[in-house]
C-alpha cells in the first residue's frame, strides 16, 4: 500500500470528491495562488500549506476560487451557497482566523438547520490549520476545537494521521451538516499507508490506537503521537496504556471512552489546548458522571496552561504537552491511585 503524507491524503480526498460530484468546490485565499498575477502561473501555491495544489489545473476557476482577504464575506457566501445547491469546502487557512468571521460560523452555519425547523441544511466544510509546536506565535497556533465543539449545530473533526485524514475528509464532504475540519499544521508531512481507493471514516467513532490494561490515554490530533511515545516508554516500566484517538470531538464517541475506562479504571486526557472548558474537561466530566464506579484513581488532565501560546521555542516546548509530561503523569497516577 502506498505511503502518503497527511497533506497528500487530504488533497486526494478533495480531488476524489470533486471528481465524483460537480457541486463540490473550494473557496479560500490562495487556494490556487497567483491569481491575477502577470506570470499566469495559477496553481502556483495550492493553499498556504499546499493542500489544494493541482486542483485548479484539473477543475478550473469556477470550482477552485481564490478569494480576497474577506473572510466574513466568503465564509458567509460559502454557507449561502451550501444552502442553495453547492457543496463548498472553505479554506480558512489558520483556525485563529475564525475570529474574523465567527458570526457566520456560529450564528449562521451552526443554527440555520435548527432555526428553520429542519427545512434548511448547510453542507459546508471549513478547513483550518491549527495547533502549536512550530513557533508560529499566539495568533497562529490555537486549536479552536474546545470552542467549536461546544457549539450545537457544528461538527468538529481532528484527524491525527494521513489515513484518518483522507477518510474523515471524504465523510466531511458527504456530510449534510456544517463540518469544521481541523488539520494540525505539525502533521502535514507525517506519512503512513493510505489506500488509493476512496473510503470513509464515520464521525463519532474513536480509534483504539493501542490496547492496554492499566490506564486509558484519551487524546486527539498531534497529541496522539505524544501519547504513543509515552506509552512505549511506560511499557518498559511495565505499565500498559490504552490509547484512544478521538478523531472527532463533535460528535464524540462516548461509548469507546467509557468502555476503555471501565476496563482500565484510570483516565489521563492529553490535550494541547488550555484547560478550561476544554475537550479534556469534557471527557473528565463524562467519565466522572458515567464511569465513576470503575475508577481506581483520580482523573488526570495533561493540558497546556491557561495562557496564549508563547513564541520563544523553549517556552512553547513547555506549553505543548510532551511524552515526558504524559509519562510522569501516568507514573504518578499509578503510584498514588491504586
Amino acid at each position, binding site marked *: 500500500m502506498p505511503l502518503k*503524507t497527511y497533506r497528500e491524503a487530504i488533497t486526494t480526498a478533495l480531488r476524489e470528491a470533486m471528481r465524483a460530484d460537480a457541486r463540490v468546490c473550494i473557496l479560500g485565499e490562495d487556494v490556487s495562488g497567483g491569481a491575477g498575477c502577470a506570470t499566469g502561473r495559477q496553481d502556483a501555491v495550492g493553499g498556504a*500549506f*499546499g493542500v489544494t495544489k493541482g486542483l485548479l489545473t484539473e477543475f478550473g476557476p469556477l470550482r477552485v476560487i481564490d478569494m480576497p482577504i474577506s473572510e466574513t464575506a466568503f465564509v458567509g457566501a460559502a454557507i449561502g451557497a451550501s444552502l442553495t445547491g453547492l457543496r463548498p469546502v472553505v479554506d480558512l487557512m489558520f483556525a485563529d482566523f475564525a475570529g474574523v468571521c465567527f458570526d457566520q460560523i456560529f450564528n449562521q452555519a451552526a443554527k440555520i438547520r435548527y432555526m428553520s425547523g429542519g427545512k434548511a441544511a448547510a453542507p459546508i466544510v471549513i478547513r483550518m490549520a491549527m495547533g502549536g509546536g512550530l*513557533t*508560529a506565535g499566539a495568533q497562529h497556533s490555537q486549536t479552536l476545537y474546545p470552542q467549536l465543539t461546544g457549539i450545537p449545530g457544528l461538527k468538529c473533526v481532528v484527524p491525527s494521521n494521513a489515513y484518518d485524514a483522507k477518510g474523515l475528509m471524504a465523510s466531511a464532504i458527504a456530510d449534510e451538516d456544517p463540518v469544521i475540519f481541523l488539520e494540525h*499544521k*505539525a502533521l*502535514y*508531512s507525517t506519512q503512513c499507508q493510505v489506500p488509493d481507493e476512496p473510503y470513509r471514516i464515520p464521525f463519532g467513532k474513536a480509534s483504539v490506537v493501542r490496547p492496554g490494561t492499566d490506564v486509558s490515554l484519551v487524546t486527539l490530533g498531534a497529541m496522539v503521537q505524544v501519547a504513543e511515545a509515552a506509552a512505549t516508554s511506560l511499557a518498559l516500566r511495565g505499565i500498559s496504556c490504552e490509547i484512544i484517538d478521538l478523531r472527532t470531538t463533535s460528535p464524540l464517541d462516548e461509548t469507546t471512552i467509557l468502555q476503555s475506562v471501565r476496563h482500565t479504571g484510570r483516565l489521563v486526557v492529553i490535550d494541547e489546548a488550555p484547560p478550561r472548558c476544554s475537550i479534556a474537561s469534557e471527557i473528565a466530566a463524562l467519565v466522572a458522571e458515567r464511569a465513576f464506579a470503575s475508577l481506581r484513581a483520580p482523573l488526570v488532565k495533561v493540558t497546556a496552561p491557561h495562557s496564549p501560546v508563547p513564541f520563544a521555542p523553549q517556552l512553547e516546548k513547555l506549553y505543548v504537552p510532551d511524552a515526558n509530561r504524559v509519562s510522569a503523569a501516568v507514573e504518578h497516577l499509578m503510584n498514588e491511585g491504586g
Partner: protein
Amino acid sequence: MPKWGIEMQDGTIAEWHARIGQRVAKGDPLLEVETSKVVNVIEAPAAGVLLRMLVVKGEVLPVGALLGVIGEAQTTAPEIDRFIEDCRARR
C-alpha cells in the same frame, strides 16, 4: 540548506544551475531544491567561484547541511577540505 518556512525539516536537490569553476555574482541562481511544499532556488550568498558541489540531484539533506563552497579561484584543495571540516564540526 536554508530553512524556508516553519515546517521545513529537509530538502531534496532538484537541479544544479552552476558548474564547478563557474564565477558567480551574489544572488545568482545556484541550485534548485524541492521540499514537501515548494520548489525554490538557492542563490549565491556571495560573489566568487563555485569551488565545490557537495550534493547531487536526488539527495535529501536536512536544514543547515553544507551544499557547496564558494571562494576565490586560487584556494587550494586542502584549504577547501579544512573549511568543509570546520563548517561541519560547527553544526
